[in-house]
């Protein structure tokens, strides 16, 4: 059981952290949530069917992120997120690289910001399907959707994301 747990931690830890970081602004909140989700996995492992753990972990992490977002909204409103926290996330996304990476840094920052602004379930679908390339069945199970809903909502979320990126680019040019 312990060996299975270690394998699951190693196979899923990184992608869960990516999911949490793309949903939340604070990198430390994301790490806390991933740590909690993995500890919960250990506690629930005897009950879980082998093979169902990735979807279970995704659901657990996503729900915790949504709870955290709701709590943050209640406290201060999404529009009043601290700039320093945003910087902290950016540092985690790209790393403290040299100035030559400034363009890439800025593009990714814009992309991450646009993903975070997508409404649910579009945001989760973009992360799970397009960024992490998880199969339709696993995502459908994790988000409690049908496979066709996963495909259609992903398509619509991608369209919304593309429009958002284009609008921001136009604003910048203007």
């Amino acid at each position, binding site marked *: 059981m*312990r060996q299975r747990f270690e394998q699951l931690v190693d196979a899923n830890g990184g992608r869960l952290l990516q999911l949490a*970081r793309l949903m939340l602004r604070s990198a430390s909140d994301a790490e806390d949530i991933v740590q909690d989700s993995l500890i919960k996995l250990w506690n629930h492992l005897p009950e879980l069917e082998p093979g169902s753990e990735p979807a279970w972990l995704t659901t657990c992490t996503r729900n915790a992120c949504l709870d955290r977002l709701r709590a943050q909204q209640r406290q201060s409103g999404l529009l009043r997120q601290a700039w320093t926290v945003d910087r902290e996330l950016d540092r985690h996304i790209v790393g403290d690289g040299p100035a030559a990476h400034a363009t890439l840094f800025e593009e990714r920052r814009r992309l991450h910001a646009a993903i975070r602004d997508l409404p649910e379930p579009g945001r989760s679908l973009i992360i799970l399907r397009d960024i992490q390339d998880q199969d339709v069945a696993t995502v459908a199970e994790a988000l409690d959707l049908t496979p066709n809903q996963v*495909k*259609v909502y992903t398509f619509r979320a*991608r369209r919304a994301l593309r429009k958002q*990126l284009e609008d921001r680019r136009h604003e910048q040019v203007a």
Partner: protein
Amino acid sequence: MNKSPESRSNETSDTAERTSQEDAEFDRDLAREERVLGGAGLADDAALGADRDLRRTLAQLEAPQLPPHIRETVLDTGRGSRLPMAWAAIAAAVVLSVITLSVADPFESPGRPGDLSAQDWAQLSLAIETLNAQGQQIAQVTQREVGAHLSLPDIELPQMPLRIDALPGSNSFWRWFQPSAPQTR
């Protein structure tokens, strides 16, 4: 104001029309997504081509590594959390054995069987029965709650209830008291 059956009928027909329109959009978007996922034959549709390009860009975002301190914390929790449950089961069994032995030890009380009154015998019997029942209950609960999670190879929890019946003190106890039972009754 109450709505007339006609307005309700119009509403139903509106809803049906809307649902049908939504279904049509759903099917259309499903077909488009299939094309984007397929990736071929998108040259004639610039929007779908842009969708595919965005999907490719997104796929290039690599997942970060789980920081070592989080990995260690999680694995340490995994290592530690089962052990106390196993020890709790062992501790419960030991406590039960000690209680049973201390009550059932024939060398503890120097009195003779014949000295017991009927009331003493009844009280003692009740105490022993209660202890036995509670002990078995504790063992069953412990087995149910802990047994499924136990990975220690040397512990044979399924046999715990039987072991309680086979405790050394209980045999001596009954052998010591039973001959006198009919007399006192």
